């Protein structure tokens, strides 16, 4: 018995000593700090804009059309006199909402598929791998268009499409890693000492593959933000009564020849946010496990523009 205890001890202490510098290491990286700071700003904007914005983001004011940036209108106004800053500020709520729900859904789908893949019989696992490889060929935007053609465009459709599309990607990326962990000595030892498949999955495999999932969660969020912006731009995302950066880009596009400056703000907001999630994903990958670098490099940006 003492042998088992030592293994167990080593596992917990090993984890403790590894976890603490994990975060500290992340905070030592300029890219990680900048990304984290921007995401914090975004979340705070989402919360604050739920209660207060400088102007009503939807209020048209014919008296102040196309104002240049000033103290009263930080980012200027658009063609119907809306305050662009208030609109961009309020749209951060949509972004956070979509990123969080799509990220969670993608993780649930990805972990679920991975778990199924490692718990079930060989033929189920292998046919699932084939199905996943086929589903990966379905770009997220096409899934969203498929759903929109029936249900009409909405944020729900965006979240579902990214959740399915990226979830499949997550399970594909984690497949190799799960297989690697499944062949390690400690899993072998656990199996030999009578731990069932579910126990091995929950106690050994998932905790060890967790960094892959965290990295993928971050990249899934980046993808969902691009997808939301793209689909809302096309008119199949946020409804007219919901502030969205993609929608604003569409509204401003008509006037680009006369007022090119106004499209800077929503575009910059999308780019910085996507960049932040990409950088955060990279930083977490680098600090969590250098071995994972090569394993997930291949697929990390797989779905970013789909």
């Amino acid at each position, binding site marked *: 018995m003492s042998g088992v205890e030592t293994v167990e001890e080593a596992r917990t202490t090993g984890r403790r000593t590894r976890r603490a510098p994990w975060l500290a290491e992340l905070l030592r990286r300029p890219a990680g700090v900048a990304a984290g700071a921007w995401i914090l700003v975004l979340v705070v904007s989402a919360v604050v804009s739920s209660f207060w914005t400088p102007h009503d983001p939807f209020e048209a004011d014919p008296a102040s059309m196309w104002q240049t940036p000033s103290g009263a209108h930080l980012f200027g106004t658009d063609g119907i006199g809306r305050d662009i800053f208030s609109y961009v500020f309020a749209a951060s709520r949509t972004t956070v909402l979509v990123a969080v729900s799509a990220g969670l859904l993608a993780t649930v789908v990805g972990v679920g598929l991975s778990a199924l893949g490692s718990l079930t019989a060989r033929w189920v696992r292998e046919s699932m791998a084939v199905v996943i490889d086929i589903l990966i060929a379905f770009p997220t935007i096409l899934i969203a*268009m498929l759903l929109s053609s029936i249900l009409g465009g909405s944020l729900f459709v965006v979240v579902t499409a990214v959740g399915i599309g990226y979830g499949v990607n997550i399970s594909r990326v984690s497949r190799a890693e799960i297989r690697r962990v499944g062949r390690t000595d400690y899993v072998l030892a656990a199996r030999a000492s009578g731990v069932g498949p579910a126990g091995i999955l929950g106690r050994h495999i998932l905790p060890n593959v967790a960094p892959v999932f965290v990295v993928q969660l971050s990249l899934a969020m980046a993808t969902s933000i691009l997808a939301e912006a793209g689909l809302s731009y096309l008119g199949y995302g946020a409804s007219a009564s919901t502030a969205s950066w993609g929608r604003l880009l569409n509204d401003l596009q008509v006037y680009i020849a006369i007022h090119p400056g106004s499209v800077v703000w929503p575009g910059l907001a999308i780019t910085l946010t996507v960049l932040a999630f990409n950088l955060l994903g990279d930083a977490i990958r680098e600090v969590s496990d250098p071995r994972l670098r090569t394993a997930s490099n291949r697929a990390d940006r797989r779905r970013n*523009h789909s």
Partner: protein
Amino acid sequence: MIRFVLSRLVLLVVGLAAASALIFFTLRLLTGDVAQVIAGTQGTAEQVAAIRSSLGLDRPLPVQYADWILGLLHGDLGRSIVTGSSVASQLGQKLAVTLPLAGLSLVIGLVVGIPLGVVSAIRHRRPSGTAISVVAQAIAAIPAVWGGMILIAVFAVTLKLLPTQGFPSDGWQDPARALRSILLPALTIGLIEGAVLLRFTRSATLGALNEDYVRTAASKGMTRTQAVVRHGLPNVLLSVVSVLGVQLAALLVGAVLVEQLFALPGVGRMLVSDVGVRDLPKVQGELLALTGLVLILGFVVDLVHRAVDPRLREPGE
């Protein structure tokens, strides 16, 4: 090689079958009553019934699916319920815009991404290498529509070098004019995808820098740059080929957004407007055409990768 081609071919056919089934049954099962959707909320019961029988919607689902597949095999993708025209012939017209756009974007992406990726890896300890990598990271985060707007503002509005939007109505009759119309859209997709390829090439090259063969070549008198270009580059290019299938898919999807922005009459723009008017038979055909294209391109890339990478060959080949 023949065994590999055959097994990949089987996978391609399975993939196409699965994609068609997925599109067909998702559209049917989620819709409930396609005829009702087509008729809209204003449709009377008679109109709905007429649509139902004219489209064969009163038959069992598997029969309808089999019918659609049989039609596909004869090159019949169905008919638009809005205009009544054949989906296949329209698709052909639109692909004449989308495929050149995707092809040109790919060329731009490769021309920008691979050389700069190698350079930024070789100079990874110098400011110039870091700068390239940082800029690529930022460009990869730009949403395609905004990137396109920036290019419009600079090259079309300010410099007046290229048209803002649109495509010649006579298509490729005047190739130079048509090319000018797709140049900005192709730059938009190409630069963003190029940035993604750059980062991929960079990490592959960084890996090659640590390989024994580079060290050996360097110890035999080559500079590190020479060694990487001479011995590392083939390996780097092979791993770029292996991700190209996925990048081609991204390119086609980028086309959906960019065609809308630049008002190009391609498959993507057609899909967007058909989804808007719920022309379901047409949407069904277009989605299958696009996913089919992604699957077929993936298949081709796999074959190319297999053919050019000696490591993947079976012994005795």
